[in-house]
């Protein structure tokens, strides 16, 4: 059986999200690079894979998908095993809580954390200076979000309950980049969140992926 294909660079957070899911279920995959800098993501060939010209795209046999959370759900549904059940679709309540925290990640967590990563990591890469005011505002927003996460994770080992799920893993792409910034120490005030991050980072599948990240 041909390995599935993921189109886009590993370090791009939305691509990382898909790779994490593939590693968790142990499916063979191939990463096909798409060169953002040369605008390859807007080429006719890539638009066939993702009509919005974004990354990642994904191919499993004849099935061509895009949107990282949709791809991850497909992978975790199709390749789930008795040991790896990260969507909990056999249980409507558990599955619903996974869905809640996936949306919280997309609507609350990422928007608070992404500007910090962008200013500290992406802006200097093109020779710019980080906007400290924007960073400070984002840090304040992030702390309010972390207050909610701290409350949840002091009651449960993971976000959707006492079982790990896609909701937890989906936070990793942005979180790993955040941990490489000087503001990682913000987590020291949120002990349950910090423990949760370290627990996720110690998963073998996660280690296999992040060991390929450069140390900034």
């Amino acid at each position: 059986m041909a390995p599935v294909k993921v189109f886009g660079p590993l370090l791009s957070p939305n691509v990382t999200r898909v790779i994490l899911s593939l590693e968790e279920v142990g499916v063979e995959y191939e990463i096909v690079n798409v060169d953002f800098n040369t605008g390859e993501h807007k080429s006719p060939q890539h638009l066939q894979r993702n009509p919005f010209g974004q990354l990642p795209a994904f191919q499993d046999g004849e099935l061509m998908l895009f949107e990282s959370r949709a791809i991850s759900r497909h992978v975790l549904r199709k390749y789930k095993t008795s040991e790896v059940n990260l969507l909990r679709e056999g249980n409507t309540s558990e599955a619903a809580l996974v869905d809640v925290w996936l949306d919280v990640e997309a609507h609350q967590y990422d928007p608070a954390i992404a500007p910090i990563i962008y200013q500290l990591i992406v802006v200097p890469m093109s020779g710019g200076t980080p906007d400290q005011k924007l960073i400070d505002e984002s840090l304040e927003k992030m702390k309010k979000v972390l207050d909610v996460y701290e409350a949840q994770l002091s009651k449960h080992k993971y976000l959707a309950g006492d079982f790990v799920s896609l909701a937890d893993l989906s936070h990793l792409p942005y979180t790993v980049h955040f941990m490489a910034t000087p503001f990682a120490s913000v987590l020291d005030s949120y002990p349950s969140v910090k423990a949760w991050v370290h627990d996720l980072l110690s998963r073998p599948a996660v280690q296999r992926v992040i060991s390929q990240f450069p140390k900034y």
Partner: protein
Amino acid sequence: MAPMKLYGATVSWNVTRCVVALEEAGAEYQIVPIDFATAEHKSPDHLARNPFGQVPAFQDGDLHLWESRAICKYVARKHKPDLLREGNLKESAMMEVCLEVEANQYTAALNPILYQCLVSPMFGGTTDQKVVEENLEKLKKVLEVYEARLAKHKYLAGDFLSLADLNHVSVTLCLLATPHASVFDAYPHVKAWWDGLMARPSVQKVAALMKPSA
């Protein structure tokens, strides 16, 4: 068995997104209004339902949920799983893609337009036409993709109605209340898809609910 409870005001398109799903699923439910004017959404009672102090929130027995799309999925799974096609890997995968596209592409472009045209004036603010124009351009690019897709399939995920189609209804009903409803006219397959959705009794019911009271 107690009816499901949906907390929030029907002026919110995130709340009515859930009402569409509840109606299509034929579920027994009750809408419990939350009064923004008195900051009820930030009250301890409401924060216990949605720790981010937003609407909607939802309760079914012991299960407390928030985030409109998570609520819609739960309602579909419980009462009308055919809307999710989870038994068919290919169909459910396409459905998941279309659910994400609604959130990340379609509604992402529509939200600022609806905010400027409908919400800002409600609070005595003005409509920022520049924001509206920028987002209309983004929306048109999305509609081009939808037009290509709907020229090949009756619905977004394939030739079957799914939650992905339904999740578009509440924001699109709001678009009709702005001066920009005609943006669909250049996309005949999108228009036909929308007209088909509008004809559904569930959508008619939600449209009536969303009309501001005289």
